[in-house]
């Protein structure tokens, strides 16, 4: 059932490219239909897989002479992330209902990207995972370069090159692991059992981990993220922050930690308190949390605030992974889900609901527009999304970040303290953006008054796809926040198995 998410998306992309041009309505409804169908398959797979361990979905020899299999499987982590992908994909289409320029191609690239993402989450063969991982790069580039806004070609090329450099590192790691294990199989399960030497893991782990972490927005390799998010069209930035960054984090977990558990072992010496790759990456994660939050505090562009907040929130995911304990890693996976929903919502509000109406994202200009009164729906939505993003109890982000912090405390208390600072700054930047964009009392200057006069009638009413999308994402975040067991019961056994090593 889960495998159909992949097939449907790619088939949808192909059909979308061949649909008659000049009928944007058809293209939209078709894309929505495909995404909803894929979501239903993903949700069905999630429900069917509750309480189950890892299940093999498809296992067909692909290149028998090299031991490469078309091996799709799902464990709890995969199921949760597939569910996230389905939700983010549907929401993204709802928020790109107003794409009129080259609509068919837009949705073709969009569905191809989604297909690649589903594929990564379901692949249990390193080679296959890599193939899907790379398939996702090209549609990203075109989505941003063609339909983007601010400095789109720069942002798109930067993102494509960062992704490709990251995947080149992963490819080197793949080839190295494959040849070191005796060139028999590229299955993640077989490679994990291959008994790769510790000395090999110690250098291959950071290579693969950084390769994936580039896409997860790990500081200092995060610089593609703000520019990419800002340049991207709304749906693409929702997907970038919502699921594509999760691809990186997922790779770090599934491949990095799953395949090279000894890569995290102590080096045997320590330098200013850092004695293993675990310390290194945890430090980078913490820096990312605080740095992302601080930079978000200083932004003048509304979308950059959200862009940097993503870097900060993804820091929690990476920190959670580095705790290497049950609760921390579980929190990291839940944070992937939670951030995917919340970041998607924030980008939708900023990019679609606000920017497409006001045509500016400068906080200084938004201040004078009194959007709180003129777009009450947007203001309400952003208040809720902002609260979720700050990690208020009742939303999914709270449960996730709490678990990460507890896990970090168990591992090394100072990590928790530093990350806690990040949360406090998170409240500050969200509050600042919220206040400036929606609830400012600043009187308009003469110039903006004139502009506003022009715009006064042009603030279009909120449309039904926007309402549907916001309601869907908010209710998911709330539901998970109030009843986290629904995801945790699925995530926990999978994390346990993965941390136990060997069979993953």
């Amino acid at each position, binding site marked *: 059932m889960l495998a159909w998410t992949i097939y449907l998306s790619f088939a949808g992309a192909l059909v979308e490219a061949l649909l008659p041009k000049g009928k944007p309505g058809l293209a939209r409804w078709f894309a929505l239909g495909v995404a909803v169908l894929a979501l239903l398959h993903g949700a069905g797979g999630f429900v069917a897989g509750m309480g189950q361990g890892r299940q093999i979905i498809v296992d067909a020899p*692909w*290149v*028998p*002479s*090299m031991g490469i299999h078309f091996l799709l499987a799902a464990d709890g982590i995969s199921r949760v992330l597939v569910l996230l992908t389905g939700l983010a994909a549907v929401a993204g289409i709802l928020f790109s209902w107003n794409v009129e320029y080259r609509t068919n*191609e837009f949705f073709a690239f969009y569905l191809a990207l989604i297909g690649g993402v589903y594929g990564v989450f379901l692949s249990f063969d390193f*080679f296959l995972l*890599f*193939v899907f991982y*790379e*398939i996702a*790069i*090209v549609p990203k*580039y*075109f989505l941003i*370069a*063609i339909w983007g806004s601010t400095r789109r*070609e720069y942002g*798109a*090329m930067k993102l*494509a*090159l960062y992704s*490709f*450099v990251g*995947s*080149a590192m992963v*490819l*080197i790691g793949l*080839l*190295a692991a*494959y*040849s*070191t294990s005796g*060139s028999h199989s590229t299955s993640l399960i077989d490679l994990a059992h291959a008994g790769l030497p510790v000395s090999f893991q110690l250098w291959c782990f950071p290579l693969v981990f950084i390769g994936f972490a580039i896409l997860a927005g790990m500081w200092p390799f995060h610089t593609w993220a703000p520019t990419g998010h800002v340049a991207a069209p709304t749906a693409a930035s929702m997907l970038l922050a919502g699921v594509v960054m999760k691809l990186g984090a997922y790779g770090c977990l599934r491949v990095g930690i799953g395949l090279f558990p000894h890569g995290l072992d102590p080096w045997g010496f320590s330098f200013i308190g850092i004695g293993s790759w675990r310390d290194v990456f945890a430090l980078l994660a913490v820096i990312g949390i605080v740095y992302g939050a601080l930079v978000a505090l200083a932004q003048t562009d509304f979308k950059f605030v959200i862009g940097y907040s993503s870097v900060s929130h993804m820091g929690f995911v990476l920190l959670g992974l580095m705790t290497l304990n049950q609760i921390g890693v579980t929190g990291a996976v839940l944070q992937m889900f939670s951030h995917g929903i919340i970041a998607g919502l924030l980008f939708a509000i900023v990019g679609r609901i606000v920017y497409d109406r006001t045509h500016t994202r400068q906080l200084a200009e938004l201040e004078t527009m009194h959007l709180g009164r003129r777009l009450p729906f947007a203001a309400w939505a952003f208040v809720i999304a902002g609260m979720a993003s700050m990690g208020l109890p009742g939303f999914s982000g709270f449960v996730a970040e709490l678990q990460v912090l507890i896990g970090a405390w168990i591992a090394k208390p100072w990590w928790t303290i530093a990350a806690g600072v990040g949360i406090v700054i998170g409240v500050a930047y969200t509050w600042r953006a919220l206040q400036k964009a929606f609830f400012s009392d600043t009187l308009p200057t003469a110039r903006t008054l004139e502009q506003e006069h022009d715009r006064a009638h042009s603030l279009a009413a909120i449309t039904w796809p926007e309402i549907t999308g916001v309601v869907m994402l908010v209710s998911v975040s709330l539901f998970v926040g109030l009843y986290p067991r629904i995801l945790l019961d699925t995530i926990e056994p999978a994390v346990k198995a993965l941390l136990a090593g060997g069979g993953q």
Partner: protein
Amino acid sequence: MNYPGFYSDLFRATLPETALEIAALLVLIVDLGFLRTATLKTRVAVAALLGVAGCAAAAWAVAIAGPYTQGNDLLLAAGGSAGVAQVGILVLTALTLFLLIGSDFTRNAGEYVAVVLMAAAGGLLISAAQDLLVIFIGLELLSLGLYILTAFAKSSGKSAEAAMKYYLFGGMSAAFLLFGFSYLYGLSGSTSLPRVVYGTYMASAHGATPLLYLALVMIAAGLGFKVAAVPFHLWAPDTYEGAPAPAAAFIASVSKVASFALLISISSVALHFYSELHFQILRSYVAVTTSNGPAHIAPGIPTAWPTVLVVLSAGSMLLGNLAALAQSSVRRLLAYSAIAHAGYILLALAFFSYSPISTNAILYYILTYGLTTIGAFGVVSVVERATGSDRLDSFLGLHKRNPLLAAVLLVLFLSLAGIPPLVGFWAKFNLFAAVLSVSAGPVPFALVALAIAMSAVSLYYYLQVLKRAYVMPAIDETPIKAHPVTLIVLLAIAAAVVVLGCFPTLLQNWIASFYPVI
């Protein structure tokens, strides 16, 4: 001579070449004799179709040629990797002939096709050659054809200039090659490849290593020129830019396949004898030098040759990819990318194993690369005819001007960049896995890492073209028309790139079918 029944078998071994030559003559007779008054269109179509028929006949001849793969005093091998390369050459030649149908750079269709077929015959010869003299004759036959093809657009100054440069470099490199061959002959007293390897091995054991190195560097210069490896690559950008598009496609694909097939047979002969000699000599040395522990094996071709290849490979990967970043002409860009791709393949030749893993990976790479590059030149030629230039900016708005052509370009360039699931990715993976399966030491590993890093660089320049085709606004939105035959060929190539990428075993099994079942 080792052929069981000498003349009949020799005839059978050279049947493919004979078929091509007959087809070439037939084309000339038909074109110059019967179709003097026909329109150019008919003449081009008839000549190209006759050429394709010749290729088909030759491919059939390859299939029935008996397998002679190894042995002393063999002039031409048949079957095995030579057979794969030969069929590959014929298929690619046929494709470039199809591209001719849509182009109009020449009025002398018959001559063009005849020269293509003769050059292809040279390619067939060198991919099967097991003797220095046959190698040289085959190379000259191929090269002379290529010089003529480069100059074939007689009204274009660029074409003439490119041909002149190509010819001068080519003549020089042929001289180097011959010089190197003469040293090999002097060292070994034979022109047969296996005997040469054996002889040089013995000679270098007696202290003639410097001379052997000199010979190998000379030969590397000659063959490095053919595959456009740094530092013998200087002709490539100019030739790719100036030659008429079908000729450039021929040079970029067929000539590359043939040259790499030759490199494969040199490397595998060297290894074959190395693995046998290794034990014999080891035994005799141990008997003599008991005090020094394990015997020191004097370096013969097997160790000197990889060293030379590694240098060429690293240089080509670096310079090819970096120089391609700065190009504004798509043809020159393709030339530098060809240099880079040659670098990847040379890496696999440097770390070569006697088992067919390396051979198959190289053949897989070069055949699919040839296919992709023919398609790329096909697209460039169509755009060039419509816009009058091959600058990057002539591709602006291609997705509007001809969506199918743009889609083909997208598939082919992404494949060249090595994006899965296209065939270029699989070829690269296969190639690098082969290198690491031969030796997983730090040196091959570092080189593979370099190759992968460089292919990350390459995405940038391929995207530069695709960006213009898909992203940037068009200046001129008039549709570009492609000749239907060209379009069908291009679509077929793009489809093959996708299908072979998704099902890599198709081509692998086909290659494996050429080896005798053991």
